[in-house]
């Protein structure tokens, strides 16, 4: 056993780190650190830089313009992005649709869409969930009726992350209503500017607008926008979800949140002493750190197996469950560390250029909001309950 990264890996880490240091603007780094709202332009700036460097399609094979990195290099890259306080790479085009088109798309689709994704020309959104189809994705109701040279799409998608910025959306739609749900689904690419597409914001419990409803009323979609074969979309949908689950443990995010927690608990005072000196609170922080330490190794075991070509199975589900619980625990302890300082909520504090005096320490502002926002991570991407069903079904033989 050897827990060390190779020299080659370490050199790669330095290369990524140096590049991020040289290209990531200071203002953007500050916005990410302060949990300020990112604009479309903020995301695009970072993704355009990655595109110019040839690192945007970090999941893709080299022949399609990807990096060809192995699983360990991908892991290092993800870690460094978080450490540098860069915005996240909006995953819908490059991490989700890209691999599906490479595997199942027509030559025409590959030739047209892949370079556009590589050059960051289209903002893609994901059209999977519906009001009646969450955990049970196959029960979706949006229909696409064959009208000769086009489909006529009617229905509603929901939880569409950053859909208000999107140019294009890939959707799961019903093309055959008379067979078993999973068999009648197709995978369709829809232009958001088509007549009949309407985006409505969903305001979340923290008062933010990140997700949307997308409504389709008699939307005409050309037949050439069908990916793969009609009624076989479920296969592609599941293939895509395996990509959605890479890095799902969110180890780098939890590590940076843990450091933040330690800083906050050194500065928060309890009866005149730093909170970190409180034996019970510091024990809770220590146990969280132990959980994270173990999970990092668990994650690396999976990454290393993937680098040797073994596809992760139930490990992704287990890591998703533990990863979300650990991340949520960091937000809980941060909230607890603040005491009454967690109460004030100044929505304008998260706008760029806000320069008033914060209430209490500046780090206090986003913490309660983050705690509530992070409730979503055990719900989305296949809820933790669904992950448990997957594991039980796949591995117990019951």
């Amino acid at each position, binding site marked *: 056993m050897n827990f060390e990264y190779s020299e080659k890996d370490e050199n790669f880490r330095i290369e990524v780190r140096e590049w991020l240091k040289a290209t990531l603007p200071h203002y953007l780094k500050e916005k990410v650190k302060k949990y300020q709202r990112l604009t479309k332009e903020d995301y695009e700036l970072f993704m355009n830089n990655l595109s110019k460097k040839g690192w945007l399609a970090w999941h893709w094979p080299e022949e399609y313009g990807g990096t060809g990195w192995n699983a360990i290099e991908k892991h290092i890259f993800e870690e460094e992005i978080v450490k540098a306080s860069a915005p996240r790479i909006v995953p819908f085009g490059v991490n989700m649709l890209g691999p599906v088109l490479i595997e199942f798309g027509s030559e025409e689709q590959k030739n047209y869409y892949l370079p556009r994704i590589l050059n960051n020309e289209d903002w893609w959104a994901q059209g999977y969930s519906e009001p009646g189809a969450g955990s049970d994705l196959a029960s979706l109701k949006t229909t696409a009726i064959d009208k000769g040279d086009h489909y006529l799409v009617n229905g509603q998608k*929901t939880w569409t992350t950053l859909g208000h910025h999107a140019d294009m959306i890939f959707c799961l739609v019903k093309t055959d209503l008379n067979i078993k749900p999973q068999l009648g689904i197709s995978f369709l690419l829809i232009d958001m500017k088509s007549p009949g597409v309407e985006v409505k914001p969903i305001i979340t*419990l923290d008062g933010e607008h990140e997700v949307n409803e997308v409504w389709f009323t008699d939307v005409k979609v050309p037949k050439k926008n069908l990916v793969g074969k009609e009624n076989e979309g479920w296969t592609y949908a599941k293939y895509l979800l395996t990509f959605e689950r890479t890095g799902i443990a969110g180890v780098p995010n939890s590590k940076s949140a843990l450091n933040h927690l330690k800083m906050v608990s050194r500065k928060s005072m309890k009866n005149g002493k730093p909170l970190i000196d409180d034996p019970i609170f510091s024990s809770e922080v220590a146990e969280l750190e132990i959980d994270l330490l173990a999970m990092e190794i668990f994650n690396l075991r999976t990454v290393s197996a993937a680098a040797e070509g073994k596809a992760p199975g139930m490990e992704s589900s287990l890591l998703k469950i533990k990863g979300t619980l650990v991340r949520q625990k960091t937000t809980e302890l941060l909230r607890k560390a603040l005491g009454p300082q*967690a109460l004030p*909520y100044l929505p304008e504090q998260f706008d760029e250029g806000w320069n008033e005096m914060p*209430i209490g320490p500046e780090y206090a502002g986003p913490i309660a909001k983050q705690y509530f926002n992070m409730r979503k991570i055990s719900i989305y991407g296949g809820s933790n309950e669904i992950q448990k069903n997957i594991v039980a079904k796949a591995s117990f033989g019951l």
Partner: protein
Amino acid sequence: MDFSLSEERKMLQETVGRFFENNYKDIKKRGEYLKMTDGFSREFWKESSNLGVINGLVSPAFGGLGGSGEDICIIFELVGKSLCIEPFLSSGLLSSTILSSLNNPKTDLINQIIEGKLLMSFAHMEMNNRYEDHFIETKAKLEKETWKLNGSKSFVINGDSADKVIISARIEGKVNDKKGIGLFLVDNNNINNRPYNTIDGYRSTEMSFENINGELLCKDNQALKCIIKTNSAGALALSAEAVGIMQVCFDLTLDYLKTRKQFGKSIGAFQSIQHRMVDMMLEIEQVRSAVMLASSTFESNPTIRDKNVSAAKNLVGRVGKLIAEESIQLHGGIAMTWEYSVAHYAKRLIMIDHLMGDADYHRDRFKLLSSI
């Protein structure tokens, strides 16, 4: 033994309950009240007074009709059920508790509060005193027979709309000395207020003041006793409010589990989900029991009173987290939206643990008091 409410209290519960429900029909109504100048509805507050709700928080000895632990809990459980944002805590309970605990009780001010004519707040918390009763940096000094106050107070719930404010300040000694504390009555016009909303929808303010006049209400041992009693009253009220909220969270979740269908059946049909609901139900009954105990011993000697209040508030902190998080998780995405009420109940339930002592604070206080 009898765990049921008297006929009179049942009537109070029914009348107030109906009144709250009629005025807080849904979460949108609360949103409208929240946007008002004071962060709550003055009209609703006035009607609460006319109906005798504020009365119910004050003892007959000072012109009220209630004021016992049980009365406080009945009213605040209903506050929780409707998620009311009016100043029941700041004016109705905390201020009247202090005013009635003085050697010369300020009955005239209490009566003005009951009549809905006077709003008051208790400004005790400071940026760094966390939940402590005696950790006070704000200073008071006597100048030519007038008390002058200097300093700042934080997280003063409904402090911006208060006419008068009671401020805790240090007359002498070190910042965390138990001696040398005074309580002062101050006109809010003399205070700089920086109002803001809290994440759970309340109006709060940061107060700062320089050399302002204050009327000494009490000092030293009496002041500390008064602060402890007031904070315990607040912790008891918040615990009862939490019970009301938890029940609503449970009911909304159960209702959703029955109606939401996935995989061809209601999600409540899954045993793993049912077991989690049973865990929630069990823990809510535990909290309800601890709150009943704390309410029934609220008029006992301070050690028993505070020990039982701490037991209740500690449980509220622990179970509140469970109920808030499970209610959201079992609902799924819908509970993450502003539009759906469960999110607002969950936020209030979590933030109750950040007021009047969190679970850790009350666990430590329970340890101290139970070893006496």
